[in-house]
């Protein structure tokens, strides 16, 4: 599958993320530093995208702009067909909670709360009332991820692989349409890396849009689309 910077090469019906002439510029010592400079790119539901590139190439910046964590400097970003510039902060926050699931580099689990509470956090933010019932279904999730019995452990008592799984569960708790993973397997051994990619692939096949930033060469075995970024500019592979 090719991604052409000048042409939309994918089926428009499934497009949920569309970026057009998007730039991210930082001021560094009174000079402009262009972290990202994209012509056109779009992402569809049901696909696994891998974004690869050297450190500082703009991969994480792209992910953060897609995830509405950072604002772009220029350009148009449409999410589910709506221009994000027309959204206020509360709408963006709502979308981040309900439609986007993040998996961070180093997992970013809260050491002060148990694994199950880490997973529940996005659900608490959603302010749904049935969180007690939801907690019961999470035990099932721990089972599916093969970490039964670790629900009440604190992160310091989890292995790296277990932390990765908890982090992924947290990203999935609100059943988002989009999963954004920033180096989700950076600290993992081959087996755990494989498990994470397989899970992400599975969710992509179930209709989610999965976008993964990774240095790992293994990701290419799972990705439907590989996007390369160098110095903020997208090429393709």
């Amino acid at each position: 599958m090719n991604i052409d910077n000048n042409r939309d090469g994918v089926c428009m019906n499934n497009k949920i993320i569309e970026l057009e002439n998007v730039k991210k510029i930082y001021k560094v010592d009174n000079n402009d530093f262009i972290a990202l400079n994209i012509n056109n790119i779009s992402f569809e539901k049901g696909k696994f995208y891998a974004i690869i590139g050297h450190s500082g190439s703009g991969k994480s910046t792209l992910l953060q702009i897609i995830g509405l964590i950072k604002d772009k400097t220029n350009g148009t970003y449409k999410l589910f067909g709506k221009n994000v510039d027309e959204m206020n902060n509360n709408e963006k926050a709502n979308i981040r909670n309900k439609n986007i699931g993040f998996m961070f580099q180093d997992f970013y689990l809260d050491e002060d709360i148990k694994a199950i509470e880490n997973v529940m956090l996005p659900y608490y933010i959603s302010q749904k009332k049935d969180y007690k019932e939801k907690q019961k279904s999470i035990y099932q999730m721990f089972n599916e991820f093969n970490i039964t019995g670790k629900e009440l452990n604190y992160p310091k008592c989890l292995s790296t692989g277990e932390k990765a799984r908890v982090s992924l569960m947290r990203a999935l708790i609100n059943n988002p349409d989009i999963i954004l993973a920033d180096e989700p397997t950076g600290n993992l051994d081959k087996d755990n890396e494989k498990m994470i990619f397989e899970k992400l692939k599975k969710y992509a096949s179930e209709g989610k849009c999965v976008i993964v930033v990774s240095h790992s060469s293994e990701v290419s075995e799972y990705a439907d689309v590989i996007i390369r970024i160098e110095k903020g500019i997208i090429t393709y592979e």
Partner: protein
Amino acid sequence: MNNNVLKYILNKIKNRNNITFIIINTILITIVFVCLIIVRFTLDYNSALSKNLLGRTLVVYTDNLDLLRSNEHVIFAGVDKYRFSYGFNFNNNYISLMPLTDNNYINIVDGHGLINPGDVVCPKRLYPYEYPLDESNFKEFVNTKDWLNKSISNGTYTFNIVGTYNNILMDEANICYISISDFDKLDITSYNNNSMIIIDNHKNINSVKSFLTSNNIGYTEEFNAGDEYLYLVTIPPFIISIIVIIILAISFNFSKKSINNNNKTIGILRAYGESNNNITKYYICYHSLLLLISIIISLIISIIIYELVKPYLYEFYYYNLFIRIPILGIIIFTLLYILYISLITKHFINK
């Protein structure tokens, strides 16, 4: 605000860094509270000085009462016997009677003032013993509201208790007041043939002294307890100001550091869809709770210090002692401090 997320944030208070903050803040706030108690005490003390009759009375060596009354600050001039009290025992209580030479001197709390012959007004909290007041008996005050409309008698004359006056700030413990004409009936002989004057305000004593000197009238000051304790007026507010500045600086740095340390948590909350406004509110609650814990502990410690130190402060008062906890000052300080912390938190979160 989301209760579950708020609980999650507040759960972080058990963090060791927060314990250190609570301890440091408790020490500093305790010092502020103790200083506020001392400032309140000095204000009360100065108020007592300016009101206290004894502190405004001079014995003068002349019988020219008209000359004495010609001074604008002299509100009473008479024979020296009016300086002395007439004491007697009644029902195991020691009652001390004095003539009311300054009608503006007392504030009636219950009942009414001196209207009819035989009326007497007593202190709201009466110390029913002869002085001196000391730490062994300072608790034995009587609420004289219970004595209203009752009579006391020295065996010869009977007086009716018609009112109580507020003696909290007056350094008066056991003086009941009757009219000058009633006092004249009592068998009081002054020890000498001197005169006495009462000055309208403690601040005007020096002016009256100058007047007496310029008229070649000798005088004796009955009671002067002000100047050597002047440091009480100036030092505590100065210390408080410095302490408050230090507290504000520490709190500023702590809040900034706390927000930085919580960057990860704030980032997670933002990423998973919590709004900036809610995050700000959570952390305002978080810091306010830390602060409240410090303030409550400080208050308990301050009250303990207050109870331990109170008996040693009797020397500052001649007859009486009412040290008050400055509740309003403490409340104002607490509210302002919480507001300050909230503003800092909001600033750093938005930044």
